[in-house]
């Protein structure tokens, strides 16, 4: 891969809980391209969260190395402050982590911690709120706690964006949101990618979401990287995914079911539009 922003080499990690050692990651090797949107999928306990917590130095490798923008996360005396400004991490159910009296205060917390001037803080907050669809003029002075869950989550996202990270890690960002909330969030994420060229790392078990956003997928199972590739190649392997406890998107499931029934649908048909086009062609051929 040319110009990767994250390089993981032979990474292993064990949690040490007193007497027991629990191996969470074994020998992970991967690269994440600058400006890409990658998804890390796997069941609970597969090591997804452990892996991404290395990317902003919340965890240090037990063995192996993790390089983020050439910063060696495991090195002694690594500048964690600098690392965390470059790599923003949004936790699960991020809306529960808001604390500001107003939306402005909440989003401004990060830039203020970075010791920015008043004008700079303000311009960053305004731009971050803009990009998540909650314009400052309308929302800035409101209390985050009077907003809906979906809006609060977007404020948490703005809080991370205000620090202008180069890498954005989103841990299960759409859990609990309804279809409308999801669709809105996805369009803001696309805008963030386009406008800021941020690398996005999605941790998700929602395959429809992965299919909608990611251009590369890593599959983790019991701490190992078992599969990687473009979403369409990964989702074509429905049976393997099932053995790892993962569902494929419902449409892939339907197309797989049709293929096993003898329909010659090519592997590169993955979206509704592509399937409609293929079926329309069949109809035409059969009609003649």
């Amino acid at each position, binding site marked *: 891969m040319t110009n990767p922003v994250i390089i993981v080499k032979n990474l292993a990690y064990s949690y040490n809980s007193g007497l027991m050692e629990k191996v969470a990651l074994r020998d992970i090797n991967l690269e994440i391209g600058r400006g890409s949107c990658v998804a890390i999928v796997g*069941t*609970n306990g597969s090591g997804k969260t452990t892996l991404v917590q290395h990317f902003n130095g919340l965890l240090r490798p037990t063995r192996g190395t993790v390089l983020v923008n050439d910063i060696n996360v495991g090195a002694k005396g690594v500048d964690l402050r600098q690392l965390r400004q470059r790599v923003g991490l949004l936790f699960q159910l991020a809306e529960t982590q808001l604390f500001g009296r107003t939306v402005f205060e909440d989003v401004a917390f990060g830039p203020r911690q970075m010791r920015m001037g008043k004008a700079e803080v303000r311009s960053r907050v305004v731009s971050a709120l803009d990009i998540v669809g909650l314009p400052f003029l309308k929302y800035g002075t409101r209390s985050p706690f009077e907003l809906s869950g979906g809006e609060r989550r977007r404020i948490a996202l703005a809080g991370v964006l205000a620090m202008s990270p180069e890498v954005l890690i989103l841990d299960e960002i759409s859990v609990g949101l*309804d279809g409308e909330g999801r669709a809105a969030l996805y369009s803001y994420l696309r805008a963030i990618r386009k406008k800021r060229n941020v690398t996005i790392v999605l941790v998700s078990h929602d395959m429809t979401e992965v299919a909608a956003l990611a251009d590369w997928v890593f599959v983790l199972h019991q701490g190992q990287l078992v599969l990687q590739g473009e979403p369409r190649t990964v989702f074509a392997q429905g049976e393997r995914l099932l053995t790892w406890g993962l569902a494929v998107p419902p449409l892939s499931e*339907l197309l797989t*079911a049709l293929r096993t029934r003898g*329909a010659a649908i090519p592997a590169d048909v993955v979206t509704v539009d592509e399937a409609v086009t293929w079926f*329309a062609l069949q109809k035409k051929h059969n009609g003649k």
Partner: protein
Amino acid sequence: MSILLDIQHVTYAYPVVAGQSPVLRDVSLQVQEGEYIVVLGHNGSGKSTLARLCNALLLPDQGNVLVGGMNTRDITKRRSIRDTVGIIFQNPDNQIIATLVEDDIAWSLAVQGATPELIAERVEAAMAAVGVTALRQLAPHKLSGGQRQRVAIAGILALRPRCIIADEATSMLDPLARQEIVALLHQLHREYGLTIIHVTHLLEEAALAQRVVILKQGQLVLAGTPAEIFANTQTLQTLKLTLPEPIMLAGRLRELGYAIADNALTIEAIAQELRP
């Protein structure tokens, strides 16, 4: 069939903010004993409020809710109402109390003063019904989300209700666990004749229901069988409810002249219709 739940012209507003518009406005709905009904709607549509009105966690401002003929306003009937209708919530952690799976399932019976023999019998049966017998001696926090939700369901089953309301009980689970819980609800419906009210924002969970009602901003806007609802693509679009992709594909192929039965709503059924 008899009517188990009779919601009559119910209006409800949360008292927190004065002058706030009601979350439910003149909602009427009758649920038959033994029915499997899906209540669909977005966040804020009033579906959880409706669920809470069904076992007297909330009382209507106007109108009445009758459970097996008992009015939820009648305080002397409250216990029997809650024995009749049990609710499972979104986050199982909010309704798991004890430190062992079997103790948790026994909890409500113990609180009600049931005999040890009865408790043992009911807990055994409830664990078997949801498939957590092997986990009985484990601490709930060691279980997966799907397993914890099963334990929560077992806790309700031990009380032998006639109706279970699953209020977004799948929305925090991963897709496989979600499918398993939906399958479990259908199994309880089939095998024990339980009335199920399944509250969700996911259209795909409605495919196997007997009836679907859709709530929008506190009002019932659409009702029908899953096939009728799924065929109503335009209304679904204005309601911003997303059709599952396989059903979307089936709809577009029908327009192309493919013969696909209206009641083919599962992946299996659609695949069967489209097979070469």
